[in-house]
């Protein structure tokens, strides 16, 4: 793993996340949200979980970001900006960050370097999905079906 790559990806991701959290113009914030997920997918690649990184790009950027952008379009009312920003949220976020950082630094066992690994192939993920994790797979299938039907029912125009 490369230190330079880590720093670059970390800066990209955190900057895009900050932009998504604070920009006033709705569309720019939504597009920075997509860039954040590109950064997170890059992290997954760096950590050697390529399948998860590809699924992340596929699901989040290809589907969730498009959904969010469409919803912004459909709920616009000619207002391009999100006026109003609650500053108490910043205080809470900084407090939580401080708490997490102190917890991380107090733990000694997380200062290890990465052990070398054989790559996790898609074949292995498939085997594990079909043997150990077959119940969660079926439950996720049911959940996705329920979400699909539920979302459709929620946005269908009521007749009359």
């Amino acid at each position, binding site marked *: 793993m490369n230190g330079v790559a880590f720093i670059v990806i970390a800066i990209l991701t955190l900057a895009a996340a900050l932009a998504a959290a604070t920009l006033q113009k709705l569309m720019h914030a939504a597009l920075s949200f997509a860039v954040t997920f590109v950064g997170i997918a890059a992290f997954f690649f760096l950590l050697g979980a390529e399948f998860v990184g590809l699924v992340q790009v*596929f699901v989040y950027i290809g589907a969730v970001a498009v959904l969010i952008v469409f919803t912004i379009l459909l709920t616009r009312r000619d207002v391009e900006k999100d006026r109003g920003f609650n500053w108490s949220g910043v205080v809470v976020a900084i407090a939580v960050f401080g708490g997490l950082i102190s917890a991380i630094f107090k733990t000694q066992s997380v200062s290890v370097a990465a052990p070398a690994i054989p790559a996790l192939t898609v074949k292995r993920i498939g085997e594990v999905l079909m043997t150990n994790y077959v119940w969660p797979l079926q439950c996720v299938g049911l959940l996705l079906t329920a979400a699909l039907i539920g979302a459709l029912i929620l946005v269908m125009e009521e007749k009359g």
Partner: protein
Amino acid sequence: MTDSLDQIFVRGKQLLLSSMAHAPDWLVQIASSLINIFALLAVFLTLFALMSVLERKILGRIQNRYGPNRVGPFGLFQPIADGIKMLIKEDIVPARSDKIVHFLAPVLIAATAILALGIIPYGRGMTPFRIDGGILFFFAVGSTTELAVFMAGWGSNNKFSMLGAMRAIAQMISYELPLIITVLPVVMIAGSLAPDTIVAAQAGYVFGFVPRWFVFTPWGAAAFILFFVSGLVESNRTPFDVPEGESEIVAGHMTEYSGFKYATFFMAEYIGMFAITGLAATLFLGGWHAPIRILEFIPSYVWFFAKLNALLFVYVWLRGTLPRTRVDQIMNFAWKFMLPMAFTCIVAAAVWHYTGRGLRGWLWSLVVIAIVYTVLSTLLDTQKKFAPRTYRFAE
């Protein structure tokens, strides 16, 4: 001799890399990737230039006229003239558009189209980037195109663009499902998501003369047709070019782009077409394998590009022959016909595998596909019985 001709590009690259053998390891890796990228760009940008003029000539011949034939022998230097024209045009950006988004949209579309080219095996040992989940990478990058199309439509601050972008995205999302599900039988039978393994699974010959390509199995043929049609839709080509229908919404999401940015959109569409046909050739037509044992002396990349060009010719042929479909017809077709047929292909592939991969498997999977196809076509029949046509004046 034939082997060295086949591996000429691989040997050339190894020669280039050996000239810098004293450099540190990461530099050699970067140099290797850069050589791959430059070779890929050189080949596909040349193919794009050639394709832009050949398409117009073929369309012209279908329409009983010559295509462009002024600018060079048989008009083959037309891309140079087109390129100069695009470069010297004034770049008009609408005043109230969103400048950053408007600028980034063609860049992003071109970037995702070129990224998708990186995992296709072009010849024996000539895959630019080997990723374990190569097919998934292709589709992940392809699904990013939708966001870029949306950025183009929204960034132009134009209702036609927005409408065109939404139509384009609706079409692309609907056909992404059949596109991916038709690839599933191939992945299932080959047992891997890496394109190299899938091409290797199509090596050899059945009965000594029929190649083991997946297109010669019933589920493979059905999946190939479905994949090909979905690829047509994904690249916004006629008969599915509703997003850029010139007679309806000017140029859809590309309305407000002039000059080089329009050329970038154009290039991105063609490179997307190359990527989809390249993937179709890899998954179904055996990649770089030769069709007959006698012709195996011809280098592998020649076979790959021959298959690619044959599929591109069919694309252009369809463009010249078929009229544009309506948006609701496109959606109906995707959800009511292609998706069930795509699932049937998976079942048929499993049936083929489990009844032995020989003649018995062939017949059983053909039965499965035929039953579902007949049921679907009778169910989806529009029930309108038309009266015989009568002509008022043409008797």
